[in-house]
């Protein structure tokens, strides 16, 4: 019964979303304030209705209601409670429902916090948001209904894919969706601004926090996914460049570009039409990502044929929204006259360069991801584009970006002297190059990746420190430290995020350049040595888990006779889905991870064992945490807490010539 109510609530939400899309938009056009006023309650109602149906679906999973088809296909009574809950979005229908829930949450948030926005802009933003909601609710109702009943409910369900029964992956989709869908806010603001024909600093001050929040969520989501891949797939890779990963990486890159150029609009009222275009593209990439994942078109052409309806539907949504927005952009972008002027050497120019590099990097990922499809359709060639391509074609742009980053952060607005901006950085540069040279001489016959990573890391982290120190003024160090602590949070956010990127780069370079690996058969009780660590296989046992059976090894890692860790790598088999998973055991350290995997029993009674010593791997995720933290710092900057939208009435000042 309650399930039918939830289904009905979803239909109602669809109707509300349609009203939210049409009435306020007309109201804004006719300057009719009561029509515009519809937007706010509609956004709230849509959110409440969708929350209700999501809560009901969750309840059905928790209570294992096997009269629901979705629960039968994706749950099992023996599953731990956590995975019963996360199972709600561990499937197509539920994950799209989560997508729409988050979309309506953002819409409701804009209605709640949007009191300071000009009324027509708010009405239009909420109307665009409502139309996206309507499109996706239609998608759910017509192609992916989560509330289908079973005529004959079975005694038990088929269980959730064991790979998804993991905390890392359980929370990976919600964060990614918060990011994807967060970009819909930037999109709605961009389209509303195009309809209004006006973009000013107040607009940018509104768009930037949404973009920043979306970017922070995407960062966390991507990091969780890659961390999961690292410990779960059993060989310690952290990034595969597969289409589904790229689908989340492209919006991340564009969102990074967008949140940088929104600063230029906010502070200097320049680059307006470019910012609008980026906002449209960022959400376009989010939709493309959803399309790639949901249609399975790049996973295999046949998966698309199996379910052409869903793929086509999302493709239509993508076409209508992005096509429509780009058409509007072509017609109206000319009206976005830039005010601020800047010289060739200035912070604005550095941010333009940042945008170019990020956009081109995203474009490279896009071309590489889509190329197999293009090649098959146009040239009848079945080919693959894998990690070696992306490593070669993508990396240069990011290295270039890292090179300009500390300089750009120190350049003043409008007009700058390169020599003055570089003054605090020379020391960092010398240190970076000297350390890289030292590393180069110490490692023999290995790749240049290690030294380059070290140099970039020092350059970025040192540059971020120099940036903060530079802003603390002159005088005694103690006074400067005090002033440094009182710097705006946006300054700290920038330094943290930029430094975090350096840390991540170092982790990646360290892992790729200096990893040691050994594959061997070990007898019980045998000790072997890998990269200076003595590893002993003490025992292997069969263990029974709640919904799996496991082969668990007991291993000791020691160095110079001192025991460092006792690790228990496992190989699990989930009987319900007949699927094995590897649970690597990792001893994480500051300078290295020791990564153990247990394999099959060999004919001679020994066990296959893989051992990796992975230097500095933890730094990859430490860096991403810093980046997300930087975003959060920036998000809580005083100007967003106090001034968001408050200065909307302020007339845009006239431009100040740079010359």
């Amino acid at each position, binding site marked *: 019964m309650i399930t039918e109510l939830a289904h009905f609530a979803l239909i109602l939400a669809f109707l509300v979303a349609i009203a939210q899309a049409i009435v306020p938009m007309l109201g804004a056009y006719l300057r009719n304030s009561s029509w515009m006023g519809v937007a706010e309650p509609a956004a709230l109602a849509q959110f409440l209705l969708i929350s209700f149906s999501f809560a009901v679906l969750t309840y059905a999973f928790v209570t294992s209601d096997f009269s629901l088809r979705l629960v039968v296909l994706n749950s099992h009574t023996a599953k731990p409670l956590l995975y019963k809950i996360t199972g709600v979005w*561990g499937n197509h229908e539920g994950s799209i429902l989560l997508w729409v829930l988050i979309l309506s949450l953002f819409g409701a948030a804009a209605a709640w916090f949007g009191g300071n926005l000009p009324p027509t802009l708010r009405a239009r933003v909420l109307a665009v948001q409502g139309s996206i909601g309507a499109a996706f609710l239609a998608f759910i109702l017509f192609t992916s209904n989560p509330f289908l009943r079973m005529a004959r409910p079975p005694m038990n369900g088929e269980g959730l894919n064991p790979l998804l029964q993991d905390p890392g*992956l359980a929370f990976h989709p919600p964060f990614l969706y918060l990011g994807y869908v967060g970009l819909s806010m930037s999109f709605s603001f961009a389209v509303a601004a195009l309809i209004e024909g006006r973009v000013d600093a107040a607009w940018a001050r509104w768009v930037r926090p949404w973009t920043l929040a979306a970017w922070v969520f995407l960062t966390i989501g991507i990091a969780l996914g890659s961390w999961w891949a690292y410990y779960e797939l059993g060989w310690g890779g952290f990034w595969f*460049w597969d289409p589904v990963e790229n689908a989340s990486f492209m919006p991340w890159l564009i969102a990074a570009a967008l949140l940088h150029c929104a600063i230029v609009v906010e502070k200097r009222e320049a680059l307006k039409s470019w910012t609008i275009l980026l906002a449209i593209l960022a959400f376009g990439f989010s939709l493309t990502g959803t399309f790639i994942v949901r249609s399975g078109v790049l*996973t295999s052409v046949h998966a698309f044929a199996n379910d052409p309806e869903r793929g086509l539907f999302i493709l239509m949504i993508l076409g209508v929204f992005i096509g429509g927005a780009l058409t509007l952009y072509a017609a109206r972008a000319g009206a976005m006259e830039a005010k601020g002027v*800047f010289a060739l050497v200035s912070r604005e120019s550095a941010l333009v360069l940042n945008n170019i590099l990020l956009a081109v990097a995203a474009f490279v990922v896009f*071309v590489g991801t889509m190329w197999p499809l293009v090649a098959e359709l146009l040239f009848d060639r079945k080919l*693959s584009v894998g990690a070696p391509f992306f490593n070669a074609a993508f990396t240069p742009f990011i290295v270039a970006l890292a090179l300009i980053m500390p300089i750009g952060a120190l350049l003043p607005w409008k007009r700058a002297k390169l020599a003055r901006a570089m003054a605090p950085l020379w020391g960092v540069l010398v240190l970076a190059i000297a350390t890289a040279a030292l590393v180069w001489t110490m490692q023999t016959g290995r790749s240049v990746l290690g030294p380059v990573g070290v140099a970039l890391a020092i350059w970025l982290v040192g540059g971020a420190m120099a940036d903060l120190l530079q802003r603390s003024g002159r005088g005694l160090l103690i006074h400067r430290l005090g002033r440094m602590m009182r710097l705006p949070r946006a300054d700290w956010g920038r330094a943290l995020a930029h430094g975090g990127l350096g840390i991540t780069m170092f982790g990646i370079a360290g892992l790729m350049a200096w990893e040691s690996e050994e594959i061997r058969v070990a007898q019980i009780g045998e000790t072997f040595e890998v990269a200076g660590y003595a590893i002993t296989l003490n025992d292997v046992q069969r263990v029974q888990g709640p919904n799996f059976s496991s082969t668990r090894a007991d291993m000791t890692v020691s160095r110079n006779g001192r025991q460092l860790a006792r690790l228990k790598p496992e190989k699990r088999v989930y009987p319900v889905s007949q699927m094995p998973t590897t649970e690597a055991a990792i001893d994480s350290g500051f300078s290295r991870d020791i990564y153990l995997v247990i394999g099959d029993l060999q004919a001679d009674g020994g066990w296959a064992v893989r051992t990796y010593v992975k230097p500095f791997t933890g730094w990859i995720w430490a860096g991403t945490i810093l980046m997300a933290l930087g975003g959060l710092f920036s998000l809580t900057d005083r100007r967003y807490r106090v001034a968001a939208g408050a200065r909307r009435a302020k007339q845009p000042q006239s431009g100040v010539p740079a010359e």
Partner: protein
Amino acid sequence: MKRLILVLCLLAAPVFAVQPDEVLDDPAFEARARELSKGLRCPVCQSESIDESNAEIARDLRILVRERIVAGDSDEQAVAFIVDRYGEYVLLRPTFGGANLVLWVAGPLMLLGALGMGVVYLRKRGKARLPEALSEAEQARLREILEE
């Protein structure tokens, strides 16, 4: 969610990426085999090389690569041997030939284009402001004010 497709590979067979019994005795040969394996795609997997994959066919391909190396093939010959049998699809790094050239030059070309556009834009912006400095009438007015 995201990597659901990788499951397909794991479904194939409950074995383990590179098995101890595959490893060649000669470390130089083995190192070459590992390097080549990293560039070859497991035909039934999603973006996994045969070096990483647990699938049965990936194991067969790994053994095949090692056989070719032991038989005295050069790296290129060994890869060509696999590509002849399994198609271009197994190459994780696409060739430069034919239409693939587009794939490889797309990024650099776009960078050049974007840089060019950026510079033109900045130049134009700089110049556009110059005439605005002071018009004839403004000059006259300025002189008036100064003389007052």
